[in-house]
């Protein structure tokens, strides 16, 4: 080999190494970029979740407290408009609003004129008289006495106290007038305005007045609906899973059922609502807006989930268990009920809880069967008209008052807490009873 040849080889080799090194650098940079893009996608997705939860929490947490105003209320028989009557009927229909207004006029004696008086009365909720009614119903002798009471404030006052409405006088488009802001400041200075835990939210039904609107009716409606769903879908789902996994022959019919179940799992829930409307309401004449119908529709929706989870759990039980039981003389049904089902039950229950959680958050099919009515009463049975939690969220989200934004978020928080508890329960169940065969 000559020197020139060696030199040629060296000179061509060096650029080749450099080219490879440069390319390797590029490739590694591309590798890092790709990896970072993937991580970014995960972070962005989780970021959305965080923003969502922060928005809801930020909007909703303040709804768990409510502003109350202290007033010296005189239960004057004349203002109440009951004269000498003290019967329960007379007390029930007495003019409690008037008493509350009188108390306000007495507190601010300088207020004159109809407009000003109406503004003053607007500080206290128009539903604040419920406490007074209860007080007199318990003790009719209290007529004529004076009581120091904490009354529920109007939603605008509540919003101002929580900082959602500007308290600077003269602000444009403010829901509270400058005079009202002045009275509020005066009351607050003497400690007659406080924020307390909002028990109304958890004890009453829906209302047009945000400060009187509660979730309890919706919670009860949800409980009734879910109870019906569970009663219907759990036995049917488990029976179907057992049949398909343990008894069914492999033939066209079984295949048809399996395909059907998989398809049902993918049908949009609003279509199930149409089914409920056409079949349960129009054909069978069941009551509109009732948790009974809602529960039935939800049962059909979460049936595929339960069946699929149930089959997976049954499949996970090793055949040796079945063979051992059969060898000891158990019948096929005994093998299933006495051995396979108990072992598969944690898995089935996990699937059922997840299905129920899904049903709890379902809204669209319930709108179809009329569960969007404005219902004040707490439902007493699954046949009464009722709202459910997600529908209540939908209804409140549609209301224009600022205070309902807060209430809606609070309703969502309650809904999410229920869902979290159910999901954690399912996870706990899976962890505790998980078998590795």
């Amino acid at each position: 080999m000559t020197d020139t040849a060696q030199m040629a080889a060296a000179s061509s080799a060096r650029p080749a190494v450099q080219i490879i090194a440069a390319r390797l650098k590029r490739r590694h940079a591309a590798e890092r970029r790709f990896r970072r893009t993937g991580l970014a996608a995960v972070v962005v997705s989780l970021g959305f979740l965080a923003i969502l939860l922060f928005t809801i929490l930020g909007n909703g947490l303040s709804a768990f407290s409510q502003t109350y105003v202290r007033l010296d209320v005189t239960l004057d028989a004349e203002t109440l408009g009951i004269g000498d009557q003290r019967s329960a009927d007379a007390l029930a229909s007495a003019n409690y609003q008037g008493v509350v207004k009188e108390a306000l006029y007495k507190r601010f004696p300088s207020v004159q004129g109809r407009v000003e008086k109406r503004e003053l009365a607007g500080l206290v909720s128009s539903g604040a008289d419920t406490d007074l009614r209860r007080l007199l119903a318990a003790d009719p002798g209290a007529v004529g006495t004076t009581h120091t009471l904490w009354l529920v404030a109007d939603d605008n006052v509540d919003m101002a106290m929580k900082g959602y409405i500007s308290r600077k006088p003269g602000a444009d488009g403010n829901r509270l007038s400058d005079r009202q802001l002045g009275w509020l400041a005066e009351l607050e200075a003497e400690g007659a305005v406080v924020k307390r835990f909002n028990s109304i939210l958890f004890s009453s039904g829906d209302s047009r007045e945000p400060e009187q609107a509660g979730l309890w009716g919706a919670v009860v409606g949800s409980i009734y609906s879910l109870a019906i769903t569970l009663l219907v879908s759990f036995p049917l789902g488990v029976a179907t899973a057992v049949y398909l996994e343990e008894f069914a022959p492999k033939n066209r019919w079984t295949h048809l059922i399996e395909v059907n179940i998989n398809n049902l799992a993918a049908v949009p829930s609003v279509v199930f609502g149409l089914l409920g409307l056409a079949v349960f309401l129009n054909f069978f004449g069941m009551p509109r807006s009732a948790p009974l119908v809602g529960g039935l529709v939800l049962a059909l929706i979460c049936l595929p989930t339960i069946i699929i989870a149930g089959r997976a759990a049954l499949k996970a039980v090793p055949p040796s268990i079945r063979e051992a039981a059969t060898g000891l003389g158990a019948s096929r049904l005994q093998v299933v009920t006495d051995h396979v089902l108990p072992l598969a039950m944690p898995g089935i229950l996990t699937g059922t809880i997840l299905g129920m959680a899904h049903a709890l958050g379902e809204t669209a099919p319930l709108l179809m069967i009329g569960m969007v009515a404005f219902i004040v009463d707490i439902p007493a049975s699954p046949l009464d008209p009722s709202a459910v939690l997600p529908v209540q969220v939908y209804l409140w989200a549609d209301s224009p008052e600022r205070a309902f934004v807060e209430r809606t978020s609070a309703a969502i928080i309650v809904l999410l807490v229920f869902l979290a508890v159910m999901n954690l329960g399912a996870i706990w169940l899976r962890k505790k009873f998980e078998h590795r065969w």
Partner: protein
Amino acid sequence: MAALARAFSPLIPTDFMQLLILTAALALLVVFGYASGQRRALAVAGGNPRLLHSLPRYHGHFVALWCGLPALLVITAWLVLEPTLLRLLVTNALPAEMADQPAERLALFYNEIRNVARHGHAATSDVVADAARHYAGLRQTMFMAVGSLALALAMAGVVFARRRVSPDMRARNRVERVVAVFLVASSTVAIFTTIGIVLSLLFETLRFFQFVPVTEFLFGTSWSPQIAMRADQVGSSGAFGAVPLFAGTLLIAGIAMVVAVPLGLLAAVYMAEYAQPRFRSVVKPLLEVLAGIPTVVYGFFAALTVAPFVRDAGAMLGLSVASESALAAGLVMGIMIIPFVSSLSDDVITAVPRSLREGAYGLGATKSETIKQVVLPAALPGIVGSILLAASRAIGETMIVVMAAGLAANLTANPLEAVTTVTTQIVTLLVGDQEFDSPKTLAAFALGLALFVITLGLNAIALSIVNKYREKYD
């Protein structure tokens, strides 16, 4: 029983309470039947269960089934038939001039009677009050008759079945046969549900097409389902061309896919190929939380936060954005379906065999090159399947678009304008009280049928792609 029910009536309505009491009585009888069958079996065997063909508990089940099943059938049949029967009897007993009203008026009138009788509404006339009393009386009598019949059947069942208990009786086989019938019957519920969906949608859709031609529905470009109450009002015809709805649905679902597919796919790749097991075990469930949040929450989020944000951002750039823009609804829907893409894709990427990866590493490929050139092509069918499933989710999603998308049927491809979707229209057309013969309500069923067919088709394609290529490397 009525007295007992009335005692609870302040808390629970009487009719529901009566049913509860009847059920409870029946349940007690069943338990009693079970115990008595079991004891009877032991007694006929002289206390030695080995002399029996079936274990005592099967004799118990046998008696309990004879006790409960016939009674349950009677009660169910009554619950199904009651409304029709009551309606027939009450309307027949109405004075002649009332009974001769047109069918819709009669239905309204009957509704009033029922409300007076069952919910204590105030009666508007004496005829209504009389009819309501008649209704309540009939209902009570019928309930008593059916309740007594059910309980009598239950008791007769116990007596009859107890008599048949003997050492040779094959109680287990009989009970198992009943259970087998129950199992088979349950498994057909899924089929009946599908048949129910198809039939109810098809039936109402056919009625809709008597008002509106099929071609106008499928190819018409104008949608305004409002129909005037009186015939002489202006613009009363109503237009049922569904093309703007399909276009709006595609636009919003398309925006959702543009958000969800890259994010979901990249997240899936990162989780499957790069993430440490601990990171994965925390982040994967967190991502799936996105799919577990109720859609009404997303709808609220879209309407309250995202839509104003999009509008303000557009205004800063000098664009005019509708306050119910397709973009806002699509963005939020995209966030919701990220986990549908990422979870399924993650599974198929993990399922690509190691040997393929190692082959690529052996040839000197970096990890990202292996993923891009080997793993993703191998997992492509599964990924396509997951994307199609997510798309069908997006098309069928209702609450987000009901709360955040508009109601005006604009035929546009501009994501900054408001569009409406199939699901939004279904909800809008059906919420509230409507008579059931107007094309307006029937249109909702036609839209529902279209939705059902489209999502079913997408799912069928997705599943067939996944299944066809699934076992390629096994």
